C-alpha cells in the first residue's frame, strides 16, 4: 500500500470529508449556543442571624432553619442583639440552599459556595493585621420538607481575612463597609439531595485569641454556584452521541492497522492511544451521578481531562518528531522521553494539586488548600512547576516544528534533483505534515480565541429574539472540536485501502535508508499517482 488515506484520497473526497467535519463543528457550537443555557448559575444567599436559645430549652433540634416552619428565633441586625443581651457565641448564621420553593437536583452536578463577610468600619474596632476568622460550620441535608436534618459534614475552618478600607479611616466614615476578598468556603462533588442547610458560627474566645480583632461583622453573604441542569443534559447528550462515533472509528482504524503485514509504527500507536484517551473522556459515566451519590465524580472528571490533555500534548511531540526527516533512529518511544517527560511531570503536579484540593474535599467539603499559608505555598509550587513544564513543552515543540520546517525546506531544494518517486514521497510527507499542522494550529487557535471571548464577554449575546450563550457554545464547541480532530486524525492516518502489492511495509514516516529502496519500488508500481501526488508534484516542479 502507498501509505495513509490522507495521501491516497482524492481531493474531492478529502474536501467532502472536510466539509462534513466542518458542519459537525458548527453544529456543536450551535447546540451549546442556542439550546443549552449558560453552564453555571450563581445564587446569592444572605445568612439569617439566628439566636441559639438552647441554653434555655434542651429539646430543640440542633439545626437552625432560616425560614419556613420551625424557623429559628431571628434577629434583623446586631443592634437588636445588643439590646437583648445576646452574645456573639449565641449567634448562628443559617443558610438554606436553595431559596424557598426550589429544590436542588443531581443534574446540578456540583455545588461550590463562596463566603463573603460584610464588615463595617469602626474607628475603635478595626480589622487587625492578618486577622483570621475561625468558622465553625455544619452542613446538613434532607430530601423532603418535613423530615429531620441529617448531618453531612462538620468542621472548624480558618479563613484569612483580606480586607481593605478605601476611604480614610475617620469617624465620618464609620459604618461604611470594608472591601473584602471572596473566600472559598465549600465544594461538594455531587448534589444528591434536595435541600441543604448550612449553620455557621463564629465562636469568640478571648483567651485563645479566636475571632478577636475581626472587625464588626454585619452580615455573612454566600454565593452558591452550581452547573445548570439544562447544560448538564445537553452535555451528557453530546457525550453519549460522541462516544460511539469515536469508538467506531477507533475500532475501524485498529482493524486497518492489524490488517497490514508489518507491525504498527510508533505514530500509529500514539494515534490509537489518543483515540483511547478521547473515548475515556467521552464515555458518559456521569449518567450514574444522576442516580448515585458519587462525590468523586468531579475529581474523576478532572483526571480524565488531564489524561486527555497529556496525551494530546505527547501526540504533538511525537508527531513532529516522526516527521523530522533526519537520519537519527526514530520509531521508538524511548527517544521521546526528554520531551514527554515534562508533560508527564507537569500533569502529575497538577494531579497532586487536584488530589490535595478535591481529594480532601471528598471527606471535608469545607477544605481549601488556599486557606492555610503552607497550603497556599504548596499549591503555588505545584502550579509554578506545572507552568514551567508547560513553558518547556512549548519551547520544545516550537524547536521541533522549526527543525521540521528547516529540514523540509532543505529537502525541498534538493527535490527536483531526486528521482520522481522519491520526490513524490517527500511531497506527500510534506503535504501531510503541513495539513495536520494547520488543522492543529487552527484547533489550538480556536480554543484560545473562544476562551478569550468567553472570558471577556458577559456570557450571552442577544441575536434578535434568541439569546446565544457564549460560554456554553465555547464548551460544546471546543469539546466537539477536539473530538472531530481526533476523529479526523484517526481517519486520515488509517492505512489506505488502495493496495498496490502485499508485502510493502510502508515505512510510512520513518525514512530509513533501507526502506527508501522499498519505497521507490512501491511508488514505481503506481501507474497513476493520486490527485494529491499530481498536485504536489506540480507544485514542486514550479
Amino acid at each position: 500500500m502507498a501509505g495513509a488515506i490522507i495521501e491516497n484520497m482524492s481531493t474531492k473526497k478529502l474536501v467532502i470529508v472536510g466539509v462534513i467535519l466542518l458542519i459537525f463543528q458548527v453544529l456543536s457550537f450551535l447546540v451549546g449556543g442556542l439550546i443549552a443555557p449558560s453552564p453555571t448559575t450563581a445564587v446569592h444567599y444572605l445568612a439569617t442571624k439566628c439566636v441559639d436559645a438552647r441554653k434555655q430549652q434542651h429539646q430543640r433540634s440542633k439545626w437552625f432553619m432560616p425560614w419556613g416552619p420551625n424557623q429559628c428565633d431571628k434577629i434583623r441586625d446586631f443592634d437588636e442583639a445588643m439590646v437583648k443581651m445576646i452574645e456573639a457565641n449565641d449567634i448562628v448564621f443559617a443558610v438554606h440552599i436553595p431559596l424557598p420553593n426550589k429544590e436542588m437536583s443531581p443534574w446540578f452536578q456540583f455545588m461550590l459556595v463562596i463566603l463573603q463577610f460584610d464588615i463595617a468600619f469602626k474607628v475603635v474596632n478595626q480589622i487587625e493585621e492578618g486577622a483570621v476568622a475561625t468558622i465553625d460550620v455544619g452542613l446538613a441535608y434532607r430530601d423532603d420538607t418535613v423530615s429531620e436534618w441529617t448531618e453531612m459534614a462538620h468542621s472548624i475552618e480558618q479563613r484569612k481575612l483580606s480586607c481593605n478600607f478605601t476611604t480614610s479611616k475617620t469617624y465620618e466614615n464609620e459604618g461604611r463597609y470594608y472591601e473584602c476578598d471572596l473566600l472559598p468556603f465549600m465544594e461538594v462533588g455531587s448534589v444528591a439531595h434536595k435541600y441543604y442547610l448550612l449553620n455557621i458560627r463564629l465562636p469568640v474566645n478571648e483567651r485563645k485569641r479566636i475571632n478577636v480583632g475581626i472587625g464588626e461583622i454585619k452580615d455573612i453573604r454566600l454565593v452558591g454556584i452550581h452547573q445548570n441542569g439544562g447544560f448538564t443534559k445537553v452535555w451528557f447528550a453530546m457525550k453519549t452521541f460522541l462516544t460511539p462515533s469515536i469508538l467506531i472509528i477507533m475500532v475501524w482504524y485498529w482493524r486497518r492497522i492489524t490488517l497490514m503485514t508489518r507491525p504498527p509504527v510508533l505514530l500509529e500507536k500514539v494515534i490509537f492511544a489518543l483515540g483511547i484517551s478521547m473515548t475515556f473522556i467521552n464515555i458518559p459515566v456521569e449518567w450514574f451521578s444522576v442516580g448515585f451519590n458519587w462525590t468523586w465524580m468531579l475529581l474523576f472528571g478532572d483526571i480524565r481531562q488531564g489524561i486527555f490533555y497529556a496525551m494530546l500534548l505527547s501526540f504533538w511531540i511525537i508527531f513532529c518528531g516522526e516527521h523530522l526527516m533526519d537520519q537519527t533512529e526514530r520509531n521508538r518511544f524511548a527517544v521521546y522521553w526528554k520531551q514527554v517527560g515534562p508533560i508527564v511531570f507537569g500533569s502529575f503536579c497538577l494531579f497532586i494539586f487536584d488530589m490535595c484540593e478535591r481529594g480532601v474535599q471528598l471527606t471535608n467539603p469545607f477544605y481549601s488548600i488556599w486557606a492555610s499559608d503552607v497550603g497556599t505555598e504548596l499549591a503555588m509550587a505545584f502550579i509554578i512547576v506545572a507552568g514551567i513544564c508547560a513553558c518547556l513543552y512549548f519551547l520544545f515543540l516550537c524547536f521541533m516544528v522549526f527543525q521540521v520546517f528547516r529540514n523540509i525546506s532543505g529537502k525541498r531544494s534538493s527535490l527536483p534533483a531526486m528521482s520522481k518517486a522519491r520526490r513524490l514521497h517527500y511531497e506527500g510527507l510534506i503535504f501531510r505534515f503541513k495539513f495536520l499542522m494547520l488543522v492543529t494550529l487552527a484547533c489550538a487557535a480556536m480554543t484560545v480565541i473562544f476562551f478569550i471571548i468567553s472570558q471577556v464577554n458577559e456570557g450571552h449575546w442577544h441575536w434578535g429574539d434568541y439569546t446565544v450563550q457564549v460560554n456554553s457554545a465555547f464548551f460544546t464547541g471546543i469539546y466537539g472540536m477536539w473530538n472531530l480532530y481526533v476523529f479526523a486524525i484517526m481517519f486520515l492516518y488509517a492505512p489506505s485501502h488502495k493496495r498496490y502489492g502485499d508485502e510493502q511495509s510502508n515505512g510510512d514516516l520513518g525514512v530509513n535508508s533501507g526502506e527508501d529502496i522499498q519505497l521507490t519500488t512501491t511508488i514505481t508500481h503506481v501507474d497513476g499517482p493520486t490527485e494529491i501526488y499530481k498536485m504536489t508534484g506540480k507544485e514542486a516542479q514550479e
Partner: protein
Amino acid sequence: MFLPHGFTCSAVTSIMDSRHFLLTVTFLVLFMQAVVDASSWWSLAMNPLLIPEAYIIGAQPLCSQLAGLSQGQKKLCQLYQDHMQYIGEGAKTGIKECQYQFRHRRWNCSTVDNSSVFGRVIQIGSRETAFTYAISAAGVVNAVSRACREGELSSCGCSRAARPKDLPRDWLWGGCGDNLNYGYRFSKEFVDAREREKTYQKGTYDSARLLMNLHNNEAGRRTVSDLAHVSCKCHGVSGSCSLKTCWLQLADFRKVGDALKEKYDGATSMKLNSRGKLVQVNNKFNSPTSYDLIYIDPSPDYCVRNESTGSLGTMGRLCNKTSEGMDGCELMCCGRGYDQYKAQVVERCHCKFHWCCYVKCKRCTKTVDQFVCK
C-alpha cells in the same frame, strides 16, 4: 429628627417670584390638595403596623389600613403582601441615607410626621425633592434584592417572574440567579405605580411633576444597578479559569447615597416645552441622562421656618464654628448668629469589642462647646 424651629412667613415671596403666574395658581391648588393628599408610600417607613407576623395570616385588610398607598400600590400590596415590610425597610434606609448625606445642609431631610413623612417641602419640585425620590426608590431596590437573598420573598428569583408555574422547570434548566433584576423591576412597578395611575393634561404643572418624579425614581434605581459590581470565581480543572462564574453584587448603600449626592449637586433644571415635554432650561449643558437627577422648581428658602413651603428653618440646629462649609455656623445660621453652650458629653472609651454585640467600655466624660443657630 425634630429640631426646635421658629415660624416666619417670608418664604412665600420666593414662590411669588416665580415667573409663571400659572405656576402660582397650581401651587395654591396644591395647598388645598395637600391636606387631603399629602401621604405617600414613604409612610411605610414610619408604620409600626409593618411587622412580619402581620402578613403571615392572610392579612388582606392590612393593605387598606396602610396609609399612603395609592390605588395601584394597594393592589400590588394585596398581591405581594410579603414584600410590604421590605418596601417599608427600603424607604427607611433611603430616608436614613438622605439624612446622613444632608446632615450638614440647611435642609437636613428631617421627617415631619408619619403620613406625609417629609412634610410640605416635597410638594415643591426642587432638587431636594428630586434627591428624596431617587434615594427612596434606590432604597426599595436594595431592600427587595436583599430580601430575595435572604429567602424571605416567595416570588423572587427567576427573572421571568410572570411565570411562577414554570419556575421549578426554569430553575432546573437554567437556574434563577439575578435578584437585583427582580428588585429593580418590583421597585419600578411599585414606586412608579403612584405616578403612572394619574393622568394629567399635557403641559400642566402636575404633568411636569409627574415626569420629574418618574425620571428621578428611575435615576435612583439605575444608580443601584449601576454601582453593583461583577464578581467572578474561577473553578475549572485544577482551579484553572476554564470555568468561570460571575454574578452581580450590590454595593454598600452608603455608596449609592454618595453617588446620588453627586447627582444632586449636578442636577439639571428643567421646564415644560410647548409640546408638553421636559426640556433643559439652560441649553449650554449636556442634556440629562436617565442616571441624572432633574428638577423643575427652585429650592425654597430653608433658612427660616415657613408653613406654606414646609421649610423647617435652621433655628436650633447645631453648627460647626470653625468650618467654612455648609455646616459652618455662618452659612448654617444664615447670618443670624449662634448661641454657645458648654455641654457635658458622656462617651464610651477604652472599649473591648467582639465582632458582634459585646462591648466592654469605660465611661469618659468630657466638656464640649456646642453652637446652636439662633
